[in-house]
């Protein structure tokens, strides 16, 4: 599904964020990417979405180099993803439900379906009572859950979640992680970065990739029963 081959990513200011990295992620896997702040987790996710271009190596999505696709092919790939950005990237001035609906607007669904899906997803993240509140009037934790709802409502093939529990209290964090890992039941690939390593143990059959200074220092399958 995702295949990184010999990736090196060097930013324009000279920072080497990732070094000589090979990762293959298969369909339906639940992958946690852990590592200290600055270790390269966000950069790795950006590669998956073609937001940054590697200095060396290639990023294959479904056996195609994402950086060589034409614009409309790349759009289709992006439409099959549910990104949850570390800084949320929600639309200020619009309400919770409008944000979730926006992620669904260009699939050709009709408005009623989009609204129903958005409401159902907001229920799952525990925010249906804030559907008509503007984004800027929500707490950070609530913003984070709106971002998560926008991603899951799209029923994506891949969830790409950058520290999705970073602003949540323990109960909410557990809730969200359970929600995200349950998506595997529909054969969704779920990729989550986090430094809340103590929560990973709650999930069964996970893969944990550990980064340090832009290099992979661990890649293990954990089967917890």
């Amino acid at each position, binding site marked *: 599904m995702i295949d990184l081959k010999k990736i090196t990513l060097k930013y324009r200011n000279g920072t080497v964020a990732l070094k000589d990295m090979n990762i293959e992620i298969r369909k339906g896997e639940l992958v946690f990417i852990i590592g200290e702040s600055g270790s390269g987790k966000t950069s790795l996710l950006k590669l998956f*979405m073609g*937001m940054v271009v590697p200095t060396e190596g290639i990023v294959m999505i479904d056996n195609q180099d994402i950086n060589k696709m034409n614009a*409309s092919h790349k*759009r*289709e*790939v*992006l*439409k*099959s*993803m549910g*990104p949850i*950005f570390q800084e949320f*990237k929600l*639309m200020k*001035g*619009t309400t919770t439900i409008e944000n979730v*609906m*926006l*992620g669904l*607007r*260009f699939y*050709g*669904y*009709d*408005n009623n379906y989009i609204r129903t899906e958005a409401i159902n997803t907001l229920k799952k993240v525990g925010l249906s009572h804030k559907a008509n509140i503007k984004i800027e009037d929500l707490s950070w934790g609530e913003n984070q859950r709106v971002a998560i709802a926008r991603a899951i409502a799209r029923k994506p093939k891949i969830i790409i979640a950058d520290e999705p529990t970073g602003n949540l209290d323990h109960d909410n964090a557990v809730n969200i992680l359970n929600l995200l890992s349950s998506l595997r039941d529909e054969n969704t690939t779920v990729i989550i970065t986090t430094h809340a390593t103590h929560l990973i143990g709650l999930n069964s059959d996970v893969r944990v990739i550990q980064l340090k200074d832009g290099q992979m220092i661990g890649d293990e399958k954990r089967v917890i029963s």
Partner: protein
Amino acid sequence: MKNTGYFLKETWRIFKSHTFTNILSIVSIGLILLMFSLIFMGWQFTSNIVEIVRNEAEIDVYLNNSDFENTRDSIANFPEVREIRIVEKEEAYAKMEKILGSESKVLTYFDENPFQSYLEIKMNLDEVNSLIDNIEKIENIDYIRDNRDILDRIDSISKVLSTLNHLIILAVGITTILIISHMIRQGIYQFKDKISTLNLLGAPPLFIVAPFILEGTLLTVFSGIISALASILIINMVFGNISGTLPFLPLPIKNEMIAMTIYLNMSISFILGILGSIFGLMTSKN
């Protein structure tokens, strides 16, 4: 269009992000369009007059004797003449009475009919000169009255207005497109984070730009409505004044003119709005 509601909301949001400058540009584009409208109407008025008078060009020939029938017959032989007839002095009197309208009382101060009989000749304006040359050769001609001077003057005014009209169209077009494209660039800059997020979510370009094009088009269409309303007001005033003071001036049909103005303002503002928005999109970096 499943997303019409969303697009309209977005358009409103873009508008509100620069309410004041947006209203200013609606007003200024409205004034620009009004200027164009006025020139266009002036051109319509004069070319209408020219058209009517050109086909109805008329010279009046006065004789120094009363040999009207023979002179008429010899003039009628000239190929330029479309129509010739004798206007008796009684008819000349009646004509003037009609032209003067309520002022015709002055005619009653004359004891006798002060008008002379004459020959009225109709022809095409372009043939007036050669015909007059020919008629002047006939002996018993006293005096030829023609309205070439006036016709020439109206004709050249109409030509100037026509040229002006084209120049103004060009100026209106360029100015409007520049103003609108600037507004669009401003909006895009304001919403650049939003646009990049939509790109990351895989939104198609048309979905992303639709609200901006809608915004630019609505701005100019509002200007067009303002200009059309003002033009209608002015048409009503002008028609009221002219038909009161110059009752014999041939006017275009008022309702036709109003319809034409509305059509012109709406279509030009619509087209310029779309062009301006597209130009704005093309010239912004995103």
